[in-house]
């Protein structure tokens, strides 16, 4: 799904590197990396395949297809036509989720999710303090009650028993 910002941006000229050429070459690089990782495992023979046999076959297949995507990708969109207007926010989201993942087992579910929501709704989205507090407290306690207490799914609890 393209974002509105992408739809409004006029397409750049049709010259230059194409998106499929880049993605094809990335696939080839990935295939080479997997082939390199696979060197540790015995490939065996055609008649008696070892643990490295199927991964090697797949890496070769991925490399060949990547090459075809790159070679036939001359008519795809120019790489510069791909816009990343939401890129910064996407990175912030991934970093914040990573931090939440680290915190989850250290300070428990409720505190982590409370801090996570305060960060997003209060700091990133700049909403008023009262709704931020209500949503953050309500969601963290409510979801713990439903998932943890009612449905008996074990959720991490912090060192303070909370």
């Amino acid at each position: 799904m393209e974002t509105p910002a992408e739809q409004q941006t006029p397409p750049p000229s049709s010259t230059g590197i194409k998106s499929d050429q880049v993605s094809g070459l990335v696939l080839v690089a990935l295939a080479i990396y997997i082939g390199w990782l696979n060197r540790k495992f015995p490939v065996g023979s055609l008649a008696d395949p070892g643990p490295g046999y199927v991964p090697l076959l797949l890496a070769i297949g991925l490399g060949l297809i990547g090459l075809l995507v790159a070679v036939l990708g001359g008519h795809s969109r120019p790489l510069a036509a791909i816009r990343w207007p939401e890129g910064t926010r996407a990175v912030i989201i991934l970093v914040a989720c990573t931090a939440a993942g680290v915190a989850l087992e250290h300070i428990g579910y409720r505190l982590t999710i409370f801090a996570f929501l305060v960060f997003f709704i209060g700091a990133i989205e700049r909403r008023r303090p009262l709704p931020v507090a209500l949503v953050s407290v309500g969601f963290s306690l409510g979801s713990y009650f439903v998932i943890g207490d009612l449905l008996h799914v074990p959720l991490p609890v912090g060192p303070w028993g909370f």
Partner: protein
Amino acid sequence: MIETFNDLMLGFSIAFQPEVLVYAFAGCIIGTLVGMMPGLGPLAGISLLLPATFGLNPIVAIVLLAGVYYGAMYGGSTTSILMRIPGEAASVMTCVDGYAMTQNGRAGPALAIAAIGSFFAGTVGVIGLMLLAPTLATFALRFGPPEYTALLLMGLFVLAYMSGGSMLKTLAMAIFGLLLGMIGIDIMSGYTRFSFGIVELGDGVGIVSVAVGLFGISEILLTAGNQDTPQVQKPTLRELIPSKEEFRRSAGPIMRGSLLGFMIGIIPGSAHIISSFVSYGIERRISNHPERFGNGAIEGVAGPESANNAAATGAFVPMLALGIPTSPVTAVMIAAIMIHGISPGPMLIQEQPELFWGFVASMYVGNLVLLILNLPMVGLFVNLLRIPYAYMYPCILAFCILGVYSVSNSIIDVWIMLMMGGVGYVLRKFHFDLAPVALGLVLGPMLELSLRQSLALSGGEYGIFLERPIALTMFCLGGLLLLLALKPLIFKSKDWRSKVGLEDEEAT
């Protein structure tokens, strides 16, 4: 036939148990809400609910998750029609004429026809499932490792041929998924492969973390910057009633969409998405007034909505009869059943008749519940859409972390989810289809095991695949499809995608 009827009665005796009814009802409601919310499609919804099913009995668990699946198919149409926002990918085609009808003041009939079409298609799908799955399962009892190898390979070729986008990119994604499936301990040799020293990866990469990352997180990464709180129309109950002319024009598309969707649903890939595109293309092609399409043709709502619901049910046929997922959703549902110690496959219907027939009967009930609930409650449901996205997406993210962590209480799963979210975000920017990754992940270990078991059986002779008629037939069919898929690449000709307008839509 009498035996089928008796089995169905057994199913209804289970489906009408209060506990099963309550969970079917809950699944339908959750599914409708999930389908309406951009960024939380049926797959993410099912994945997030999975941990909550651990403590339930397997019948209730699968009824709940299936309810979420077909409920999401219903729910997805509401936002498409009222706001031109597809709640999930299968509703993209409904946006075109559904929203045009809303602009023409006919939102109510569009919603009603979408719901009636979905109900009819869901019912046709369940009848098809009921008749086809047991027959297919009986046939599949003859399958050994060579037949499974052939079947899985054929499935991958069908996936490539029927993919909505580029065949090469689809194959690349399927191989990427198969490679992800190679992570973990190799059952036949005991080697731990590609685990990077992480003990938790010994068991392989879980489908839930990959699916939530690829489909849930990546969607949020793409849409998180949206600040708009959309204006929503709330049609009254009286406004929902379609005119006689609208009923007449919808009947054919609903029937065609139901049959087409069910057939496409059985084959691997993003069937519910493809079926709605194909149905729309067919309806536009056979219409006497193709110029009305795009300007509020009710056929453009009736056909695709029926098709995507029938396809959702069709996908359960190979899942229950063969134990093979044909879509990411069924892959997660297989994981859900296996958690309860039940292996889906040809023996499932014989060994667990209560589960299979209870599930089938619950789908009849679920479809009826959705029809009865959705139309009168559409005004209530659309209130959810008034919640600003700035509040919504952090809560969805929190649910994603919670759901994935809870599956095996492992933080590694959360890292995998985030990694897959980032990968999925970039891949979507480059117009790669993500469904084959999730399918490949599940099919990879099955394919490798059946291939190596076949060779062990034959003493290393590949002739075993040619000596067995079922395997040979499947290989021939797979090869034929591969050739058909390659034809447009070699001869620069148009394939079925351009005939149904799928490439045009992909490009936009």
